[in-house]
């Protein structure tokens, strides 16, 4: 590549690069840096110049001594894994179902699934809050009471005999409903872009729907599967808006309902320990990066991105 060509490329990339620098790289560097300062109560003038590893020591101490913090770690692992499976497989199932539907029905159905994503976070969380409320007026309780399944209202997210599964289930359901629509959209459009001839040919050759999906459709949307999986993995690791509201309103157990990302938020904005929060966030970024790279490897990203055969 000659020099002027490199210059041109860089020049045209510069707006994008500037954005990446300002909105991704600098905040990341700042977060890593603040993690090594004792910053608290936003007192930038007093603490920003001091170097210390106390935040990391503090976090390590909590992890090894505070059973509630280990609950947070467990919750993060379970929540991320299960919701990821729900979101990817659920999204795929929805996409396949709508793909085989008549277009008009399919459109309505897909739009319905988009509602959770369209609804403002607070409103959507409030709906679920009232759904799982541990009182007879909670939607789920009132339904089950009427059907005679239960004889007294159940506190799904706080009753100790139902924890931690109760809290986890609520978090997974609430986030799952938002998450599946993402996979659904991507997978649906990917399925739509498969040449119709392939499907028609397979049908003529006598393929059942299951065979059609396994042998013809899934191989052609592998790239999308990889993309959605990694994207969802990273966003589930860092999501906390719904979870924050659900724990704050007390519909789930405070510790079994807290993920690491929410823990970071609480440290920064509730306890005012921005140094600790930044350290915790840095750990989360590191874990996210490692998991991202591992998934790319495992899912064979490179194989799907072969060098183009022809001349460019």
């Amino acid at each position, binding site marked *: 590549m000659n020099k002027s060509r490199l210059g041109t490329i860089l020049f045209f990339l510069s707006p994008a690069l500037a954005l990446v620098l300002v909105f991704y790289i600098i905040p990341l560097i700042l977060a890593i840096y603040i993690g090594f300062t004792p910053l608290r109560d*936003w*007192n930038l003038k007093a603490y920003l110049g001091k170097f210390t590893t106390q935040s990391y020591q503090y976090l390590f101490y909590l992890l090894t001594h*505070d059973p509630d913090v280990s609950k947070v770690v467990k919750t993060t692992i379970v929540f991320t894994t299960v919701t990821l499976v729900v979101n990817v497989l659920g999204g795929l199932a929805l996409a396949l179902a709508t793909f085989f539907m008549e277009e008009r029905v399919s459109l309505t159905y897909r739009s319905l699934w988009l509602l959770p994503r369209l609804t403002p976070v607070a409103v959507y969380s409030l709906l679920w809050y009232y759904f799982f409320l541990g*009182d007879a*007026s909670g939607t789920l309780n009132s339904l089950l009471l009427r059907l005679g399944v239960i004889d007294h209202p159940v506190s799904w997210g*706080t*009753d100790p005999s139902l924890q931690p599964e109760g809290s986890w289930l609520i978090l997974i359901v609430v986030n799952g409903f938002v998450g599946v629509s993402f996979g659904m959209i991507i997978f649906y459009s990917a399925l739509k872009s498969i040449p119709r001839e392939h499907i028609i040919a397979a049908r003529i050759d006598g393929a059942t729907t299951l065979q059609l999906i396994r042998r013809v459709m899934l191989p052609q949307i592998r790239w999308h599967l990889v993309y959605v999986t990694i994207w969802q993995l990273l966003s589930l690791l860092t999501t906390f808006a719904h979870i924050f509201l659900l724990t704050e309103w007390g519909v789930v157990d405070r510790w079994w309902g807290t993920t690491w990302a929410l823990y970071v938020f609480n440290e920064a*904005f509730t306890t005012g320990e921005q140094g600790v929060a930044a350290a915790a966030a840095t750990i989360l970024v590191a874990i996210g990066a490692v998991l991202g790279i591992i998934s790319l490897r495992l899912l064979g990203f490179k194989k799907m991105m072969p060098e183009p055969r022809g001349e460019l």
Partner: protein
Amino acid sequence: MASRTAWITAAIIIIIIIGAVAYYYSGKKGGATTTASPTTTAPPATTSPQTTQPTTTAPPTTSPKTTTTQAAPPKPVLTGNVEKDIVAIGKYLAYHGIHEAKFSVASAGDPNSVMRVYAIVEAAYRLNKILEKNGVDFRIKITTNFRRGGGDKLAQDFETAFQANKNPDIMANSYKWIARFAEEGYILDITPYVEKYQSFINEFYPSLLKAVEWKGKYYGIPQDTEARPLYWRTDVAACIKEKTGTDILANLYDKVKTGQVTWHEVYKYAELAVKTGCSKWGVLHRKGSAHPDLIQFIFAFGGQLEDPKTGKLVVDVPAVYKWLYVEWKMAREGLIPKDMMSWDWAKQIHPAVVCGKTLIWIGGTWHWTEWQTKPYCKGRPLTAEEVKKYFYYTLFPAGDHGDKPVTLSQPFVWMIASNAGKDNKEYNKYKDVYHMIAFLLVVKASDPDLIAIHSIISAHLPVTKKAAELINDKTWVQKLANLQIELSPEVKNAIADIVKKTVNEINVEFLANASKMLEYTKLTPMHPLYPRLANIFRDAVNYVLLGEMTPDKAVQYIISKVKADPELSKAVEIKGEIPKNWQFP
């Protein structure tokens, strides 16, 4: 060829971007200068300060160099006399060519608490009147920012805004922020001013002055407070009397006050209420947090939360154990709901209290008016008469016989930012003087009538004895109801609607009675790590209510949580042991 076209296109794009950025910034600057004048100003100055001809006593409006006949006024020092002090300050600044000082005030609360900012507006109006009367060519302007809701978000925003010098100069917020803000240097140490204003400070209830002290220094002035009465449903009590003959309410206020009725008796009454079917629950309390309502149990069982000698936080094991035991026992017997900590305020807690599903409610003074404004039962709010009819109130009873009853306050206080007056001319040179003005604004905002108005219209308790006397003065209250009191037109306008809705005899009588509880009031520690300890208490209460832990396990849990936190373990002392022969009820 393609490369050249690309370069030209790129160059054009860059020029357009630079042009747009430059245009945006020039526009922004222009905008800022035109909107610089404050929207909320206090003084109805007769003439513009710049054009006013000074009277014979006033210093010249021109530069000090031209004053040949008058000596420069000395740098002002506070004397304890507001009139004298503001005049001295006004003359001094006017002499140096400064004729106006701008201050911003911010606060938060329910919509009826607007006096948390308008008291400062009124204070500026009153100070400006003094200046005008004395012919001083100097005025104070105020900008206000009042937010609905709690003060925590405001306090957090104050912290971040402080980094960029954009914070309000004066803020009314919970006293709990004082330690944190004082430690970080965000608020002004007003001890030297307070020393000069001793008679002013002596008017406040001594218990409340503890709320503005941190490490022996004053960092604020009390603005309002509340108490947390125990509300008793009169209809449930009447039902119990009818069925069992026990008259719970007979002379109850005094029985609680003298320690005759303790939590042992409360337990029995709650049990009666539930067993007779007079109410579904015996006792209900807040959700989601142990602070501040439930912390009263620690004080009621004679415990402490802070060691005054060492300044360390304290986990008073016997008191904490007894508190958790009471909650645990009541939840096991069905007197208090097991999932109390996750009940919904609007759908469960208030409707249960207002519809009479409980004998006792551990509430706050503000509920008295809240029930008159929100439709918690049968789709409509209660009338003042109904609230009076259904609710009896007492102090929070003593834990054991021999202990004392308590209540708990969380005063709001005026805090002055350590950079107060920052938006004024030559701030660095006259910093001290601007700080003094901010202090005088707070002093004036604490005029008895302003405190009394705020108390009545927002159902908070007055912080000074003089204000409490004013609330008891029926003629004055009547004048307030008719808005025939001396207030600036702006403030009068701002509170007119609220006054119409809230000033009535029943509410005023309640306030006067509740004010008497302040004698028994306790404060939670101001220690910066107290919120963390309170969170651990919250989890412990939740666990005992749910039955996940027994009271002794919960105490062990609290201790282990304190020890698991390296900072907290250094700041907290664990005192005493679980009592062995204690019986409850």
